[in-house]
């Protein structure tokens, strides 16, 4: 009798897990310290942006419509970096939508849309790539995502300093969104490029609320 009960329960669990949309929301509460830290990072990003983004471009970015979303869960393996958020088709979310922390820090892009939720691929995903610019002199580079994101293909003759702002220069996203700051500069012995490691203003595990850009 007990065995049949266990078999029945197992079948129910398998049905719920693989054949329904139900999943346990693992949203975490944001402590005061975390909120203050994120506010601080947002203000810092705003100040840094002033020196690199023209006023008219900044105005266009500010008027973009963004909806707040709660982070429901985090992809639990090391293979990729994804979070599930509380907005979906019903909220007019589209694939490729820009997701930010505050108005000025890029988190990633919407990779899959469900009825009431969406999956967001973050900049920490190893398959995430986008053109970026670095510092006030706007040196071009390519951001490669991963546990430790880095910027590659930065021309050796471009002046880049530790602490310089790394910001988005990809048509998919608002121009000038902060990715992070230069943490380390690696001069490659061969080739015409150098590599930068990125100090990011947030960790995926710290995400509680994000903003999703709605199509204009």
């Amino acid at each position: 009798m007990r065995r049949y009960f266990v078999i029945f329960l197992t079948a129910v669990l398998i049905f719920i897990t693989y054949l329904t949309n139900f999943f346990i929301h693992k949203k975490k509460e944001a402590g005061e310290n975390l909120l203050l830290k994120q506010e601080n990072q947002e203000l810092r990003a705003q100040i840094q942006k002033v020196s690199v983004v023209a006023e008219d471009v900044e105005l266009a970015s500010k008027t973009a419509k963004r909806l707040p979303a709660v982070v429901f869960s985090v992809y639990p393996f090391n293979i990729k970096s994804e979070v599930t958020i509380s907005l979906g088709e019903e909220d007019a979310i589209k694939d490729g939508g820009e997701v930010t922390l505050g108005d000025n820090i890029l988190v990633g892009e919407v990779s899959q849309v469900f009825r009431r939720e969406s999956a967001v691929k973050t900049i920490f995903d190893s398959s995430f790539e986008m053109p970026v610019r670095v510092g006030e002199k706007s040196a071009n580079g390519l951001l490669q995502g991963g546990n430790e994101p880095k910027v590659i293909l930065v021309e050796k003759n471009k002046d880049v300093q530790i602490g310089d702002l790394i910001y988005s220069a990809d048509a998919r996203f608002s121009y000038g969104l902060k990715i992070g700051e230069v943490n380390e500069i690696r001069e490659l012995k061969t080739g015409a490029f150098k590599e930068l490691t990125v100090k990011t203003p947030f960790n995926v595990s710290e995400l509680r609320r994000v903003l999703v850009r709605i199509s204009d």
Partner: protein
Amino acid sequence: MWGFIGAALVVAAASFWQSFGWLLWGVNPNLVLVSLITTSFFLRERWSFLFLAALAGLILKFSPSGREELIIIFLLGIGLAVLKNYLPWNNLLGVLVLIFLGTLIFYLFFGPRLIFSVVFGKEIFLNLALGLLFFALLGGVWQNKK
């Protein structure tokens, strides 16, 4: 009965920990795989083990879709639990070998490029260390030796 409850608690706790994305040493150890492989050495009834594998999948489910990763973890857990019956070594060595094999297979499916990365190395180390810990914990409940 108490043995099964102990195993269920270990698997459930491991699944919840992993699903919240709490990092150890900057990576997510595959606690679900480790806990399933370890408990398979202590549970005699295969339906009890299947129930735990299904429970882990539900707790771990991170989005509305039934993702491939969860299916592979479920199948890996079952496959390795069957394989353990053919291992010639003692239980502890068997646990460690299967954890290594399970982690490698998972990466081969979903992240073959990452196998040569620091992330994979860290995860293997943590999975093996946690496997030892779970084995010691469950061994205290069952005192089961080959």
